[in-house]
């Protein structure tokens, strides 16, 4: 999975899970403040990413994630490792 595919997967997940307008999903968008994705949603999001990537992912991997861009980088790191 390359960076582009990961970005696409995240975009699709956010649209599907939270019914977000794709135009709001920019790398700078803050998950909590701009997209209203809270710690409860994060659990579902992590589940979704886990299924999409087939990797073991824990909430710990996403502690420092604030924006959509951060999320992309965090998943890239996991997929590469």
């Amino acid at each position, binding site marked *: 999975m390359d960076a582009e595919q990961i970005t696409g997967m995240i975009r699709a997940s956010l649209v*599907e*899970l*939270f*019914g977000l307008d794709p135009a709001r999903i920019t790398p700078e968008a803050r998950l909590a403040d701009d997209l209203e994705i*809270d*710690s*409860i*949603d*994060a*659990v*579902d*999001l*992590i*589940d979704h990413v886990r299924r999409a990537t087939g990797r073991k992912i824990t*909430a710990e991997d996403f502690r420092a994630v604030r924006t959509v861009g951060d999320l992309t980088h965090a998943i890239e790191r996991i997929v590469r490792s």
Partner: protein
Amino acid sequence: MRRERYGTSFVDAILPRVNLHARRTSSLDRAWRFIATAICYIEFGIAALALALVVLPLARLVPGSELTRRTRARRAISAGMRGFLRLAVFLGAITQEYEGLERLGRPGQLILANHPTLIDAVIVLAAVPDLCCVAKQALWRNPFTRAAARAAGCVSNSPTDQMIEGAADALRQGQSVIMFPEGTRTMPGQPLQFHRGAAAIAIRAARVVTPVYMSSDPPTLGKHQPWYRIPERRIRFAMRAGSDIDPEPFRRGAPAPLAGREFNRHLLELFTRELARSP
């Protein structure tokens, strides 16, 4: 639906009383209820210590599987709380009413209750002897309550992901789970607010969700009320189990986060309506 009442106190035979729930009672009655309340608090403290220092450690020595031990710890805690409430009724500090208890404690059942008073958890755990309780993280900071919380297999409400996964696992294992979606006691008269965690757990793993409506008349033991402010009448605590809610239709319609939001809205409306109905 079965209704149960516990209200007979030995003081009724001694103190003149026109009507248990008359608007005003004598100052003698109120003075007695102050003493009775103080005795109840002392008993609660002693019983809690005895449970943490003697009963639960002893129970751990008795052989048995993890599951047997957990059930044993839950039953011991439940019995302690029942004893406390019986004392409070006997001394005339409170009366109690239950409705629909026989439908609580089923496998995979998520019980959601509002949280008006200090002793809501005591009332629920006393009534249903084998429950997995989602409790404040503060319980794990005090060594006594931590031991009890561990033995009884409670789930901490923090961090959020562990709460959701812990409670969902308990439900999938066939336990019955109790949660207070308000998260903490809320002020009477304020609009209800539910944290979405409870709805998220319901959507993830509950076979059935049963709302439980708690009330105290007059309102007492709230967040802003010290214990020694004795209400003008004997307190009547009521616990009423509402109709089951099937989470399946919510799940089918939408992905989990959206279904959780919808379910939470449904719960809020339901509780707001039902609590306006009961006293």
